[in-house]
């Protein structure tokens, strides 16, 4: 095994081009487990900790450009207002020790269906900035996950940053596990209201071969909110609408039975989380509306 230590992003790209089998390591919370357990013996291990700008973030007008190695701890501390869904998801990652090292770039690189960041990214709307010596491109998050632990990166590409849409409405994240810490999600659900576009977006984790959106459920809820004039009149979502939304979210799952839970349980739990997160976000939206109107 060779240990590569690029001191800059350009050096990292050059090294990855020269050694496409090189495994990038940043927080190490996935890669080191595989090496410690002899599940992986990469020819080259490439340390990205020396590439300082990977741990930086920038809040723009519409999006946050989040460096691939920004630790979850920083997201929780500094980006709760801009990225509430991702901040909530970050807080459910493992333990303080892991959150100090792990970041979204690693979650995307590993592309496990159980990665905690994925539902939040899908719900918020995001693009992955991938780069190689050939140039840089933005991969829409919906097109990024291509299979179980597979993603759209080319062998010579590295993840530099994620561009995540800043929240323009309430967001929620919910995760099922046996305790609050150190849990790989049995299943997870992210929901974001986008009042400006009058749409909702969802993200489902650990209940299909890849993280997925519940497209049918989003379409149904968008139409129901629109027909009822709910974005304007701020009424509560009718129980029948919430129930149907939950069913459609459950139907968007394609889960398996495994040690953490059965497929049936996952479908059921995703439905429950969909209904609850809808209630939480919609109540919060109505609250903001009332405050805005009162102030006007």
């Amino acid at each position, binding site marked *: 095994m060779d*240990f590569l230590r690029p001191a800059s992003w350009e050096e990292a790209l050059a090294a990855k081009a020269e050694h496409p089998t090189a495994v990038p390591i940043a927080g190490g919370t996935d890669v080191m487990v595989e090496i410690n357990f002899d599940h992986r013996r990469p020819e080259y291990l490439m340390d990205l900790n020396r590439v300082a700008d990977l741990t930086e973030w920038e809040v723009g007008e519409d999006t946050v450009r989040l460096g691939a190695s920004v630790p979850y701890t920083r997201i929780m501390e500094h980006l709760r207002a801009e990225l509430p869904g991702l901040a909530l998801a970050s807080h459910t990652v493992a*333990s303080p020790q892991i959150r100090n090292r792990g970041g979204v770039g690693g979650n995307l690189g590993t592309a496990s269906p159980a990665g905690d960041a994925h539902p939040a990214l899908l719900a918020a709307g995001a693009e992955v900035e991938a780069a190689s010596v050939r140039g840089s491109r933005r991969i829409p998050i919906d097109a990024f996950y291509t299979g179980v632990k597979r993603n759209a990166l080319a062998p010579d590409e590295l993840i530099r940053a994620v561009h995540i849409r800043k929240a323009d409405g309430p967001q929620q994240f919910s995760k099922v596990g046996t305790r609050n810490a150190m849990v790989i999600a049995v299943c997870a659900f992210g929901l974001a209201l986008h009042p400006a576009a009058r749409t909702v977006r969802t993200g489902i984790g650990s209940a299909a071969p890849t993280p997925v959106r519940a497209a049918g459920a989003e379409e149904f809820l968008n139409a129901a909110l629109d027909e009822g004039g709910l974005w304007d009149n701020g009424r509560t979502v009718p129980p029948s609408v919430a129930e149907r939304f939950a069913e459609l979210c459950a139907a968007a799952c394609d889960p398996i039975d495994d040690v953490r839970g059965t497929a049936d349980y996952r479908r059921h739990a995703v439905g429950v989380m969909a209904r609850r997160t809808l209630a939480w976000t919609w109540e919060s939206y109505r609250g903001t509306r009332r405050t805005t109107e009162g102030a006007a």
Partner: protein
Amino acid sequence: MRVRLTVNGRPQEADDVWEGESLLYVLRERLGLPGSKNACEQGECGSCTVRLDGALVCACLVAAGQAEGREVVTVEGLADFARRRSRAARDGARDGEEAPHATGTPLDAARRWSAHGTQEPDETQGPGGAGSRTAGEAELAPVQQAFIDAGAVQCGFCTPGLLVAADELLEHHPDPSDADIREALSGNLCRCTGYEKIMDAVRLAAVRQSEETRP
């Protein structure tokens, strides 16, 4: 490969390090610092918890090469680390400037480390001053003394990781709620299930720390 790093304030060098080796392995097997424990090797148990450039991390998940040029604090250096921190805070409060840079516990002293003061805990409370130290006998960090006094150690395997994690909590959170303590220690498993005594110990350390810093 060769890895150079600072451990407990002292420059260290390890040779013939395998590229896939963890920082934990380097500390235990190459530098003779077995305080950080090796259990799950997957970040689940927290028994290998150390500080890496100040951040609380699992040493089993840091590749040795990633620690090149970095500063590591292990449980062996915790007493010294805590003493320097409290001295820096006192000096800082007095002079309004940073304390001189740490030089750390000498490795041989750390190796002879023993838990003195178990008979007379009162004598070892508080910083005590460096002058009261005898050669090769390091004083305990406040969290270490509190773990002893509260009976928070059973088999002891999880204790080093818990000490480093609890010390980091009290560094940032001098007056933690029970929820804060539980969250801060959520990455450390005690399979003797001695969690209540551990909670007591951290509360005790917090109280002593606040009494000490009160003007």
